[in-house]
């Protein structure tokens, strides 16, 4: 019973830590996936007096993925009934060219301003519409979401370190007598501390298994997937090998660091 309690005291902070770590990465993935989709939908509209060569625009203005001409045919078709075909032809010649510029990545407001300035300086266009207001609002929301998840992670990390540190000290006091006896018989450092390291490794493994199980089954839950669909987000699948491997590595690194810290401090 005491042993189970000892294990749970380490597994719990490790579980919370790994859960928030994975949550932060998940948020990161969701946000970048969302930003990718926004990038596909987002475009800057420019008005040019002459035809624009895609390669020229790309070489002079960085970060442009594609340049597509917006046909003026729809507007002219609408006017067909009201004005003569001769005037339509004249209008067609007088109308400037409209282009939609797609970007490589979803930019922040400064980058949007930079692109706008570069376009205007290039003299290739006469007018630029960046839809700055809508863009800024969405972008700020994404940044906020990312920041919240990382602040949350740091907060959890501090609490986990303190909890683990406390538990390791309890472990050490419990094992101190055994370690002292082993010291008197000339046991090397690794042998004296082996039990503590073994406990840390086992608990790291168990907490990884618990967190991985949760993240494998959580997206399959009906309520969670419905909620995600209503927000138009896709929850990435948990990669059992890569994600669980990363979590186990992080957990191992963290617990071994704490054990070494406590043992080192006690040896002093």
């Amino acid at each position: 019973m005491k042993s189970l309690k000892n294990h749970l005291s380490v597994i719990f902070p490790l579980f919370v830590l790994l859960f928030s770590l994975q949550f932060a990465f998940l948020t990161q993935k969701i946000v970048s996936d969302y930003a990718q989709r926004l990038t596909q939908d987002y475009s800057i509209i420019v008005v040019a007096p002459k035809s624009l060569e895609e390669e020229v625009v790309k070489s002079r203005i960085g970060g442009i993925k594609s340049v597509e001409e917006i046909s003026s045919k729809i507007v002219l078709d609408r006017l067909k009934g009201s004005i003569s075909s001769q005037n339509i032809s004249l209008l067609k010649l007088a109308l400037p060219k409209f282009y939609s510029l797609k970007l490589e990545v979803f930019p922040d407001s400064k980058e949007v301003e930079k692109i706008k300035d570069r376009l205007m300086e290039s003299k290739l266009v006469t007018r630029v519409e960046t839809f700055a207001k809508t863009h800024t609002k969405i972008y700020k929301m994404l940044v906020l979401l990312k920041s919240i998840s990382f602040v949350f992670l740091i907060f959890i990390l501090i609490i986990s370190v303190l909890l683990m540190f406390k538990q390791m000290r309890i472990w050490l006091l419990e094992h101190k007598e055994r370690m002292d006896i082993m010291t008197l018989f000339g046991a090397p450092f690794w042998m004296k501390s082996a039990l503590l390291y073994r406990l840390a490794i086992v608990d790291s493994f168990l907490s990884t298994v618990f967190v991985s199980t949760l993240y494998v089954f959580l997206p399959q839950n009906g309520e969670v997937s419905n909620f995600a669909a209503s927000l138009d987000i896709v929850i990435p699948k948990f990669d059992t090998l890569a994600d669980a491997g990363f979590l186990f590595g992080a957990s191992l690194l963290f617990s071994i660091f704490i054990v070494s810290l406590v043992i080192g401090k006690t040896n002093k």
Partner: protein
Amino acid sequence: MDHVIHAEGLTIGYGRDEPIITNANMKINPHEFVFITGKSGSGKSSVLKSIYGEVTLKNGDLHVCGLNIKNINTGNLNLLRRYLGIVFQDYRLINDWTVEKNVMLPLMIGGFSRSVCISQAQKLLKHVKLLHKADKYPLELSGGEQQRVAMARALAHNPVMILADEPTGNLDEYSSEVIWDLLKNAREHLGTTIVVVTHHIPSTLGIDYKHFFLESGVIYEVS
């Protein structure tokens, strides 16, 4: 002849307190049976602790198996301790390990294979007449039995020297006899040097021994 223990101007004490032993000289040869006696608080146990490096020297030199304890580093101290067998008055057994595993401890530290550790531990437990309690835990044994386990542990790795601090202090007559027999046998058959700290030298021992007596911080060799 090289001495297994050679102390010159040895001064030992704890912290900033007055030294317990001052400017002591002591030479112990290989295969000797040595008693260190003295009144309570005279510093007998401290002398023994200084030999296995648990007490820091304030002054002088103390060579144990050719290593100077004064400036010894952790690596060499660990190495030295692997050649010693220590028996404590309070047994110092690991209570959450079985009797057999406790005896195996010096062999495990020495890097012996598990099968060697087990067979040697069983041999010694048979020797101290506790083989039937190999799977028990120390707290399930009597004081005398625990001390016999501690003695088996001290002998497990055939040490160069056994350092025993009041090994029969709390024991009944039977257990005391077993302990003395084991120490005598170790010296006779394995050539182990024996250093025993005690209040009282048993009169029925029937062997030659060297005797150091401690009084007022000074070590005298009793002839």
